[in-house]
């Protein structure tokens, strides 16, 4: 009895993976190769939504500022590339770089450090206060990025080249798509494993009942902070990929609307399931794209549509696909 939902879950996952692998050849066969780049951006936003679900779905920390980490990751790639082109040195004797093995980990490091600072302060609060403080920090970074006159101010930086990764040609949309898919699947697999580990248990315990966790003897703050930093790093990686996908980094990536989109993806797909937010990202972006093709006033349609979706599938798209399940 306990195995039936499990089977359905793995079957659904396998089918989704096959679908994802099939996207580039199918699009190419349909003569819609242009959309492969869009599909890669969907995977990248899915990675960002996944990172948000780590803190929000597992840990119950509703961050309204995750776009900040996305933006920081993008800016690290953008600034690295800008200095390669311009030749001007960076502080601390650093030079510009387009090497993915340097720039992407650096993007994760910078986003992780920002998450450490933001989390250390925000996590002293909970609930609505936490939401507002994370939003405030993201807005701060948004305006800060807009003030970087060297790097294009509000207009941002155009990448002269995509990052270089070993022998891969990342400017080829199909190659780039599969790289994004590989990273997304890897992170998803690791986080799924993590969610039932001791660390994952603590996060879910905090989400359910933080007071009880403390009474049991858990110093909850440090675990929440660790999750927040890990989440920020993953989101930073998504940002680095996003800069490559759009060959562009600008303050708009950090806008509060972007943070809101990430929240919608998580809720739409099914909070706390990790897989759900990936589906939520796909659903939201495909909806946006197709509605925008139909009419200029697509947002007027999207809003009610989201409300309907949220009402009809309370545990999100993934809850609806995998069916009922037991407690962990």
């Amino acid at each position, binding site marked *: 009895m306990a195995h039936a939902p499990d089977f359905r879950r793995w079957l659904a996952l396998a089918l989704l993976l096959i679908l994802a692998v099939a996207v580039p050849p199918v699009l190419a066969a349909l003569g819609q190769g242009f959309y492969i780049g869009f599909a890669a951006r969907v995977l990248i936003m899915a990675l960002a939504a996944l990172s948000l679900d780590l803190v929000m779905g597992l840990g119950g920390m509703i961050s309204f500022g995750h776009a900040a980490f996305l933006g920081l990751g993008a800016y690290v790639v953008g600034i690295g590339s800008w200095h390669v082109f311009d030749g001007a040195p960076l502080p601390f004797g650093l030079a510009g770089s387009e090497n993915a093995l340097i720039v992407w980990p650096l993007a994760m490091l910078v986003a992780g450090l920002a998450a450490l600072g933001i989390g250390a302060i925000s996590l002293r609060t909970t609930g609505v206060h936490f939401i507002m403080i994370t939003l405030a920090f993201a807005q701060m970074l948004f305006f800060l990025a807009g003030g970087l006159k060297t790097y294009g101010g509000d207009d941002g930086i155009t990448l002269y080249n995509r990052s270089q990764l070993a022998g891969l040609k990342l400017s080829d949309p199909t190659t780039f798509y599969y790289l994004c898919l590989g990273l997304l699947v890897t992170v998803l697999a690791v986080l799924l494993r993590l969610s039932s*580990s001791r*660390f*994952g248990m*603590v996060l*879910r315990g905090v989400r*359910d009942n933080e007071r*009880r966790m*403390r009474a*049991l*003897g858990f110093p909850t703050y440090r675990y929440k902070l660790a999750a927040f930093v890990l989440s920020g790093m993953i989101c930073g990686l998504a940002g680095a990929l996003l800069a490559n996908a759009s060959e562009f980094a600008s303050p708009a990536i950090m806008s509060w609307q972007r943070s809101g989109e990430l929240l919608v993806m998580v809720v739409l797909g099914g909070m706390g399931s990790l897989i759900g937010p990936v589906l939520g990202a796909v659903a939201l972006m495909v909806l946006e794209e197709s509605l925008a093709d139909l009419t200029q006033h697509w947002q007027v349609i999207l809003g009610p549509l989201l409300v309907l979706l949220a009402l009809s599938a309370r545990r999100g798209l993934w809850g609806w696909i995998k069916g009922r399940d037991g407690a962990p």
Partner: protein
Amino acid sequence: MTEPLLHTSGLVKRYGGVIATHQVALAVERGHLHALIGPNGAGKSTLIGLLSGEMAADAGHIHFNGHDVTRLHVHRRARLGLARSFQITSIFKSFSVLANVVLAVQAHAGHSFRFWRPAVRDPALVGPALAALDRVGLADRRHHAAAALSHGERRQLELAMALAGDPAMLLLDEPMAGMGPEDGRAMVDLLQSLKGERTILLVEHDMDAVFQLADRISVLVYGAVIASGTPDHIRTDPEVRRAYLGEEA
């Protein structure tokens, strides 16, 4: 005379103008089942909260097992072996029964920065968790969702979670609250079996249970301890009879 396992002096807690705890000096001897009784609103839950560290005292001291724990955070006191249960059941509803207790064991099994191995399949956690579930009679319900338990079973789970960390002392806030007579009797039996094995501070309204179980009883009225002693002593104390027991008899 040996040092009590837990003792307080001059403990005070105010909520605005309300004095919920008034100059409480309480001593709980090692191995005793010490009952704390008093009318509703007397400050029993508040006192439990002060002892467990969920609330900070406005004045006074708390000593536990040779440590001055007055300023220690709640999780540090739990680690020292001071476990509590809640008057209003406080469990992890989205977890299975087993996972609830596994989490309680995990709290005492070193740090939780372990990211790979599934906790509910770790024998080092599951073993003690099953032992605690067995103790309270919930072992056969271990794979159920905690949310699906009856009220009485939740109270049992609550106790299993307190027991799981092998605490030196249990602070039990009305473990029988809202239970039917049958579950209540089972709980009394369980407490009887724990007696002597653990030091217990028990808040309870059921006077039959209290007088049957307790080695010592302290009576709290308007935040102050008005009497403390053996059940026989409390039964015959004129002030207690007037202030509290009299109105029940």
